[in-house]
């Protein structure tokens, strides 16, 4: 369930500027992050996965079925996408009603939608504001509402577009837990990220986009240690890795915790 195969994907908004220039990829159940400079094609790629855009050539297979044969509404039952700006979707006057929109659209009954929405709100720790108007919350909280609205749709594949932007440490911890819980439920998670530290701490597989093509992909440790290639794509390494290299610690460490373990000595 939830297997995506992308074959020879090409897409251009207008004939003069191709944006996706040939992508072949298979998404499995490893938590996967897509990183890349603005303009490298990440958001366009994700819109193609959701059927919001249709490829010029190549195809996308979802559990063997070609996405071209499915409507956007049908795809929405299988693939959920949390957009970057929550204000592009919020229109209901209470948080609960807003979260229920997606589940109701894809066919859940009123009771099912209410239950899944409440569960989703609990996951993002907004259970106590379900009757509040979303615009009475701050931007970071509205982002969580948007996140909950996709979680409630219970899709086998979930895609996030910059979920950590504008979040504080607590917010990032909630998102990390949500992603880990999704994986525990057997769901496939794909995340567009600019936050290298979050990517290194949470994701097993990293895909690097550059100018509409895959520059690099693989295991997080393997990808992040390739400093020169990342620089080519105007990307940085995680903080912990840079510190570890500066301190001469071997092992291409990804997180502060790994650096701690490597440096642990009996204290004086």
């Amino acid at each position, binding site marked *: 369930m939830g297997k995506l195969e992308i074959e020879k994907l090409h897409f251009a908004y207008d004939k003069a500027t191709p944006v996706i220039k040939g992508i072949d990829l298979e998404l499995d159940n490893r938590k996967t992050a897509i990183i890349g400079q603005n303009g490298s094609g990440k958001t366009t790629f994700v819109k193609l996965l959701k059927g919001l855009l249709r490829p010029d050539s190549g195809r996308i297979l979802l559990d063997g079925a070609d996405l071209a044969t499915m409507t956007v509404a049908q795809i*929405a039952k299988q693939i959920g996408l949390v957009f970057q700006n929550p204000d592009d979707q919020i229109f209901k006057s209470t948080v609960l009603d807003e979260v229920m929109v997606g589940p109701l659209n894809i066919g859940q009954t009123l009771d099912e939608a209410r239950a899944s929405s409440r569960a989703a709100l609990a996951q993002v720790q907004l259970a106590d504001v379900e009757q509040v108007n979303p615009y009475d919350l701050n931007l970071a909280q509205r982002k969580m509402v948007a996140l909950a609205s996709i979680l409630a749709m219970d899709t086998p594949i979930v895609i996030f577009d910059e979920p950590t932007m504008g979040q504080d440490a607590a917010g990032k911890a909630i998102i990390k837990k949500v992603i880990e819980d999704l994986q525990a439920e057997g769901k496939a998670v794909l995340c567009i990220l600019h936050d290298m530290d979050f990517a290194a701490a949470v994701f097993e597989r990293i895909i690097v986009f550059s100018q509409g093509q895959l520059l690099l992909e693989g295991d997080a440790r393997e990808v992040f240690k390739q400093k020169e290639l990342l620089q080519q794509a105007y990307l940085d390494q995680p903080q912990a890795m840079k510190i570890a290299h500066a301190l001469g610690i071997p092992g291409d460490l990804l997180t502060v915790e790994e650096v701690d373990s490597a440096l642990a000595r009996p204290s004086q």
Partner: protein
Amino acid sequence: MDAMTLYVPRNSPIHRLDPLTKMLYIVVSIAAAYLLDGLWEVAAVMIISFGILLIGKVFRNILPVIALSFLLILSIVIVQGFFNPANETLLFELGPIKFYQEGLVIALRLTMRVINMVCAFGVLVLTTSPTELVERLQQKGMSPKIGYVILSVLQIIPQLRATYAKIQDAQRARGMETEGSLLVRVKAFFPLLGPVILNALNDTRERAIALDVRGFDRDTPKTYLNEAKSYRYSVLLNVLLLLILAGLIVWRVMG
């Protein structure tokens, strides 16, 4: 994204005229077209407007606007040509529809008045940059707050169009159908319109804060980065236009 303006930058005498003169021209030209009755006289007023647009090198740009009002013009012709109670003299028949001379004359006159009105507005809108127009009005005492509203509407509405596309994507991604039967489209209305309005309101509130920070509410007299243009013959032309208007009114009243 371009601002929502019809302004076409060109180097022409009309572009160099005082925006206030052009505004006065709109009043005088429309009034003239209505104060005069004869078909030839109204045609002359309309041709004068064409002439000014030609001198301003923007005649080509008014044609799409006239084309837009074509539907209005067509309905005038049909209604007047067909239904006018003063209809007597039958001119010709097109199948079951009879066209009478009286009605057609009225329709033609009305059509020319509409085209003249569009062209008169065109003289102002096509040859005056919004910034220049607003600054000139402010010089004459219009509140800068109104000037701000006029200019910001021109820019922000096109931005809303971009936002609308993103909103459509977000709602479709949640399983909402936007294509199909009328019922489907009606159901899609609020999920699409809601975020547009809420976004705009939220944006307006934040912008109001930013404007306050930039001193928008200050009592101090405002100065201008752009030098105030001196318009040649401005007074002369304004007086001339006012005289024409006064003359036409007197002529009309006298019988």
